[in-house]
């Protein structure tokens, strides 16, 4: 058995007091009871609270677990709670406060978020929330599940695979095997959607990616020499323009992957890059819009190895009045490629709106081989998605000052938690290999199908 892929986590507290969900409100008028409700707090919140004078925050807002006991027991009825308005303001319509808070938790602890009670959220929702993953019941665990989760592999391949191998009369292999890279978990670090990205941030991303052994995309013009030690996982991204000025990057030792932003004649440049480095595996980055289906098929016919389909940072189709969501677009493209029997010739990376471990599993179920993540990495480093940086304003969590070691640990913790969660859902599905998760819609359920199949009979007309 090969060595097990393991991500070591290190608890890494945030630098700033997180924005808590709760606002603790207390009125004056303490009666000074001998048996004070605050003293019996199960979580010792009152004993541990302090005032963060820098951010003007009561640490209680993030420590309180909202059990209402002090509220209901205080003899003077002095204590109450409300939702912290700052918490509600976190993020945006897609990157909701819950996503941000759970990402912070995972980056700090490296643990799977666990809780009691049933699911507290809405029945269904936009995007990834309108599908469910399946599991395997008593009739099917033999398929894979018998071995337990320690045998589940999350590794996937990037590169072109031959449909068949050819041999000569003597039985010698004559097919030219294209280069291929195996990554131990189906994640790639994407270029970041916004934010002033400092050298330290790039270095910490590179160090985490190297430790995790997964690729990291970087705009070719942003590459700097200290990154050279991580060339094995560096994936420089070129446009036609930057290729001319930065193609010498490909001559550097160790670079195995590169990405080109799609344009009409992009394959000519891909060919040039391959001439510089024949072992290079090249991805073409393609906007998910109306034309993406056709271009994908053409690129495959032209021999592309990886296609990186990217939606906007909220997972929506580009340039569409009524945008489709990434899961539906990837699913459609995957299905068409399967129908044309060319799906296996290419690896597909999907990105845009991948914010939770479940999104990773779901986008793979819809047909991607791997996902690229971006904003999530910033959130792991305490980003509040306030987007002040996009207006040239200061960052409330001083992203420019991050310490490399701290940031590396936070990113690795988050990936550790995601990896464990991917294994959880795969274990439940009875799927032992991430490769087999791809496009396995027999292990997915879609809202529209369930509505049609079971509820049509009682639907109001």
């Amino acid at each position, binding site marked *: 058995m090969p060595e097990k892929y393991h991500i070591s986590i290190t608890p890494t507290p945030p630098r700033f007091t997180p924005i808590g969900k709760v606002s603790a409100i207390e009125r004056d008028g303490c009666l000074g009871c001998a048996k004070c409700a605050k003293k019996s707090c*199960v979580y010792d919140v009152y004993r541990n609270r302090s005032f963060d004078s820098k951010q003007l925050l009561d640490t209680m807002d993030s420590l309180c677990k909202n059990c209402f006991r002090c509220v209901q027991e205080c003899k003077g009825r002095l204590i109450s709670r409300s939702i912290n308005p700052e918490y509600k303001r976190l993020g945006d319509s897609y990157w909701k406060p819950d996503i941000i808070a759970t990402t912070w938790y995972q980056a700090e602890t490296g643990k799977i978020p*666990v809780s009691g009670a049933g699911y507290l959220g809405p029945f269904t929702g936009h995007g990834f929330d309108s599908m*469910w993953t399946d*599991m395997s019941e008593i009739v099917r665990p033999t398929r894979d599940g018998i071995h337990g989760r320690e045998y589940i592999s999350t590794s996937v391949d990037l590169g072109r695979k031959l449909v068949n191998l050819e041999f000569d009369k003597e039985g010698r292999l004559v097919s030219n095997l294209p280069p291929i890279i195996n990554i131990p978990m189906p994640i790639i670090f994407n270029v970041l959607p916004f934010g002033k990205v400092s050298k330290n941030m790039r270095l910490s991303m590179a160090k985490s990616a190297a430790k995790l052994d997964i690729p990291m995309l970087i705009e070719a013009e942003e590459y700097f020499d200290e990154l050279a030690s991580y060339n094995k996982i560096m994936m420089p991204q070129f446009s036609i323009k930057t290729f001319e000025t930065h193609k010498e990057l490909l001559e550097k030792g160790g670079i195995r992957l590169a990405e080109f932003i799609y344009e009409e004649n992009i394959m000519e440049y891909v060919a040039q890059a391959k001439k510089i480095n024949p072992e290079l595996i090249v991805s073409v980055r393609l906007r998910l819009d109306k034309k993406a289906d056709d271009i994908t098929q053409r690129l495959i016919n032209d021999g592309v190895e990886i296609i990186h389909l990217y939606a906007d940072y909220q997972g929506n189709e580009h340039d569409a009045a009524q945008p489709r969501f990434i899961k539906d677009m990837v699913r459609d493209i995957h299905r068409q490629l399967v129908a044309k029997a060319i799906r296996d010739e290419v690896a597909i990376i999907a990105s845009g709106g991948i914010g939770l471990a479940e999104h990773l599993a779901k986008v793979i179920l819809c047909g991607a081989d791997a996902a690229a993540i971006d904003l999530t990495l910033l959130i792991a480093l305490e980003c509040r998605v306030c987007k002040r940086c996009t207006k040239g304003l200061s960052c409330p969590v001083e992203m420019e000052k991050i310490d490399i070691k701290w940031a590396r640990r936070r990113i690795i913790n988050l990936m550790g938690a995601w990896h464990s969660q991917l294994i959880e859902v795969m274990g439940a599905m009875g799927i032992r290999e991430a490769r087999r998760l791809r496009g396995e819609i027999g292990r997915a359920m879609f809202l529209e199908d369930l509505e049609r199949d079971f509820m049509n009979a009682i639907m109001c007309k």
Partner: protein
Amino acid sequence: MSNNNLESVPGVAPAPSRYRNQISKYIIYRNDRCINCSKCVEVCKAGVHQQIGASSFSRPQEHKCIGVSCNACVDQCPEKALTVIINPMIEMLGDYRWTSDLILSTWYQAETGKLPPDGLEYCIGNSGGGFDRLRIKFPENPPIELKSDEISTSIPLNRRNDNAHRVEIGLPVYGGGMSYGSVGLSTILGKARAAKAWNTFTCTGEGGYHATLYPYDDHVITQVATGLFGVREDTIKRVKIVEFKYAQGAKPGLGGHLLGDKNTPDVAAMREAVAGTALFSPFPFHSVYSVEDHKKHVDWIKAMNPKALVSVKVSTPTDVDMVAIGSYYAEAHIIHIDGSYGGTGAAPNIAKKNIAMPIEYAIPKVHNFLKAEGVRDKITLIASGGIRTAHDVVKAIALGADGVVIGTAEMVALECVRCANCESGRGCPRGIATTDRELTHQFDPEWSGQRLINLLSSWHDQFVDILKKLGMKSVQELVGRHDCLEYEGVAIHGK
């Protein structure tokens, strides 16, 4: 009430909140202009204001206040000394599935045995799908006029009519499995008391059979789950129903997990485990990889307790219908499907949200399939996983279930606030889902039993009322009556 196999109607008795400050939807302020004229006491129909002596009032019973739709006390106070506002804290209570209104109305029913006053939603939550988009479709006039005492809410659990016990329960509802360890004894015994009072069942969960449950043997289901914790020949022989738990809706395909802190010496003794260690129930049953293997388990139970009813509890994957038919052929009496939004003492959030389908889809799927296979009338279909209210029960039955299992609703009746911290540290801070010596002493089984009796009583009245409007003599007539439902459908985004 002979229709419900009950010797007498279980006694509803007040079981007020155990906390001195009740959380209420409205807050009432009385300022110092008050002249103690007691006009407010006189005009309030809900009994919010109470005078003590000539010159003082007890604190207003704000949880009974029906709010601004009434406003009688505010309007009629000669000194304008009263103000009623919506409690700003209410936003902190509850979630999409269990809104603050649902929690407060369940508390009210558990306290009084009656429906809450106007202004509190007690039927649906705000999840935007499933039960919250289903409506019961009432005819303008009932097809037949029925009196309340002609209407039966009882259902049989043995529809095979074989040699096993002919169990009939007084309500189409029984209590879900919660192990000793995941919850404390005051909770377990309260559930058992209510089960006995309403001639229905409670379930031990996977943690063994506590001796204090012995007086309730005829109302206890004992669970055989993958860890086999606390399963002994004696426990199998005690009961009328044995439940195989293959999976749990909140975490299908994953095992159970009792955190070390909750594994007290007492809990460990029952489970024959070492105190303080985390206990895992694996997934799946490592001795069951086919329906034939399952049949072997059933035979094993029947060798010990030939008259036991067998229930098979599974979650709701796409092939749940195949599992149901397999269970039928392996001689199950009850197929219990547990939907994905069900409760748990501890589960990964990713599992609670994503794995397997909500029960609202699984019920018609299984019901229709069993019907097509021609065996629907030979097996009892029980649904759980997100049944919060009496209306949810009725909808589940109209979708195709014979009855339901509840869990979270019971917890809420015992004043759970859904803070979801059941699993952390010492367990539930409110003393429900914990075995911590200090925390469990917050209430006793008398109180918890009465709260649950009251809740079921209010549900019973609602069942009768609904069946009366539908012109049905028995809740059994409602099974699979899709024509009694209206469904608004779920908005499908970006398609």
